[in-house]
């Protein structure tokens, strides 16, 4: 990692931000005007005090070098404390979307209420059950898309922005055209879509795992 793990937290953060700004500079010859649109804390730190300390340090970069702040791998409890304690409120939560967190239903509701974008990762990998769910199977055949696209569409419909790490041009094309195809299909099948969307919502309501 681009910092010394034994260094004080503040030094680690400043070193890491400087490294990211250099790596992601848009001008090859000059990183003085580099910025990132969002910087995410990878996860809550071991204590809430450290988490808030890290957040406060990151706030000093907003809005010039960092446009918005977010946090990954968080619980609703930690997110609420950050939200209540911060000057720069969280803009993004990036969490694994899978049954073990019961799909973060209350956390996602909090995000929705406070204008926070919820980004999902592991959306396909972590959800073999959802890929075989009635809603996904029926949308796959009705809209003539892949199961991956059907699941992505139903997750997006829940207000989620989806991490997509595909490594082939074919899947990239399939994913973009597939989402557009689902959008078109919903326009001419409003009632069917409402049923599918509702059924999918029920399938990700809290269940014991």
């Amino acid at each position: 990692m681009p910092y010394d793990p034994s260094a004080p937290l503040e030094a680690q953060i400043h070193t890491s931000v400087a490294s990211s700004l250099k790596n992601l500079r848009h001008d090859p010859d000059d990183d003085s005007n580099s910025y990132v649109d969002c910087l995410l804390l990878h996860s809550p730190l071991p204590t809430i005090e450290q988490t808030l300390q890290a957040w406060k340090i990151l706030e000093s970069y907003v809005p010039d070098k960092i446009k918005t702040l977010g946090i990954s791998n968080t619980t609703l409890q930690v997110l609420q404390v950050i939200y209540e304690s911060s000057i720069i409120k969280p803009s993004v939560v990036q969490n694994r979307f899978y049954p073990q967190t019961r799909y973060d239903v209350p956390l996602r509701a909090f995000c929705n209420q406070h204008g926070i974008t919820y980004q999902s990762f592991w959306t396909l990998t972590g959800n073999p059950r959802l890929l075989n769910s009635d809603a996904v199977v029926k949308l796959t055949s009705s809209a003539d898309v892949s199961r991956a696209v059907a699941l992505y569409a139903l997750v997006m419909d829940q207000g989620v922005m989806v991490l997509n790490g595909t490594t082939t041009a074919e899947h990239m094309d399939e994913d973009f055209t597939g989402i557009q195809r689902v959008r078109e299909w919903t326009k001419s099948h409003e009632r069917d879509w409402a049923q599918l969307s509702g059924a999918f919502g029920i399938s990700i309501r809290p269940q014991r795992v």
Partner: protein
Amino acid sequence: MRSAGLIRTYSVTTGTLPRIARIASSTNRSMASSAKPASRLLPTGGDTEVPFIYGTAWKNERTKELVELAVRKGFRKVDTAAQPRHYQEPLVGEALREVFKAGVVKREDVYVSTTMLDSCVHLEFNYPSYKRSTRRQLVKISITCHTIRQLH
């Protein structure tokens, strides 16, 4: 019509309903928690961007070519991390400079997100994952201290 016929016969699996209702009542979730957030698939008000963000984990030396490809294919958001074990942030930057130079997009058209302080425990294990390819791959998963507490 094929699609309409399929949908009409659809019904919610009744076997799961009592269980969901029981858990929902026992956890005393508020009404606000169960409200469905606004759809990003069908957003109101003219936003037609497909809500994907391109993930760059485990791309290794292919990171640059794949991020370039992703932008050319339509991704306008890219996610990376200051964590060389799983991400190649410098190659993400190289790829973006290439597409800016080629005039595919401007910097202000792209949303660049990075992550920091992945300083907790890391484990690697096999996960029986859904894959579009037939090959099962070793998936490296970064597990945070926080996640480990949840798992135990």
